């Protein structure tokens, strides 16, 4: 990720970590060129509502299109392939992650699945 998007320059980059905090809306990112939203599945766990998330994805897409040279990078773990959980809340979260990833992938111009550091381009 860092290699592909040149994330190591540390100047015009805003990195949101979904494991630590909630993501911000695009209004605060005026000077940034690259915005990374990491830990997406953890962020979705706090708000397992795909409709809400679609609005958020679209807002960031609009921000990206608002100026030349901007990139938004979403990073998430695939949590949808294990045993279907018995607990209804866990199930709801997993379903929301699957639906969000589908909607996000349709909005994104590039999608990679990373296996042990090797990127496999899906889109």
């Amino acid at each position, binding site marked *: 990720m860092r290699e592909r998007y040149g994330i190591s320059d540390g100047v015009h980059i805003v990195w949101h970590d979904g494991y630590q905090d909630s993501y911000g809306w695009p209004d605060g990112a005026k000077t940034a060129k690259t915005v990374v939203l990491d830990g997406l599945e953890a962020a979705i766990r706090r708000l397992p509502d795909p409709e809400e998330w679609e609005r958020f994805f679209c807002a960031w897409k609009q921000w990206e299109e608002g100026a030349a040279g901007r990139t938004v990078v979403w990073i998430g773990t695939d949590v949808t392939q294990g045993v279907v959980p018995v607990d209804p809340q866990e199930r709801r979260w997993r379903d929301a992650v699957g639906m969000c990833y589908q909607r996000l992938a349709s909005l994104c111009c590039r999608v990679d699945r990373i296996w*042990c550091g090797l990127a496999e381009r899906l889109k």
Partner: protein
Amino acid sequence: MIVFVSGAVRSGKSEAAEVCAIRLAAGETLHYVATARAADAEMEERIRRHQERRMGMTAPWVVWEAPEGPDQLLAALRPPDVVLLDCLTMWWANVLFAGDEWKTEEGAFAAARCLLDQVRAWAAACRAVVIVSNELFSGGVPNDLGTFRYMKMLGWLHQQLVAEAEAAAVVECGLLRVKKGRWPQ
């Protein structure tokens, strides 16, 4: 040389790795690093099945049992030898949870680096090290800190090993899919 093989539970990854190690050894000494500990009857049965399969092979294996085995192996290695480690997930659990390393981010990282250095030392001392690991990453991100650090550093180990490996593959339903390099024939 490092060769990395991963796969899901019952995917056939051990068999694929054993065949690969035997080919690479070409009649020279094969070392087997066994990492599982028999905590219950099911584990005993699982270990027995692996042992029987190895005994049924014409190739003789020198077996190194965890937890001491991995530390003792290096001194015994000769340049034409081949090492098969099955599997990284068990070995890493033994290492990380043996003491208090899992309790801090730094401790867990230091333990993982130590394990990686051990694999590098083996690879430098023999013909090939074949590492078996597991596809653990699709069942969710664990809530408890110990398991979270275990998974995080296992992912890091996978990345380092695959980056340094000559060949890497994942086994699904008994089918081997090569992800990097040429599979040893």
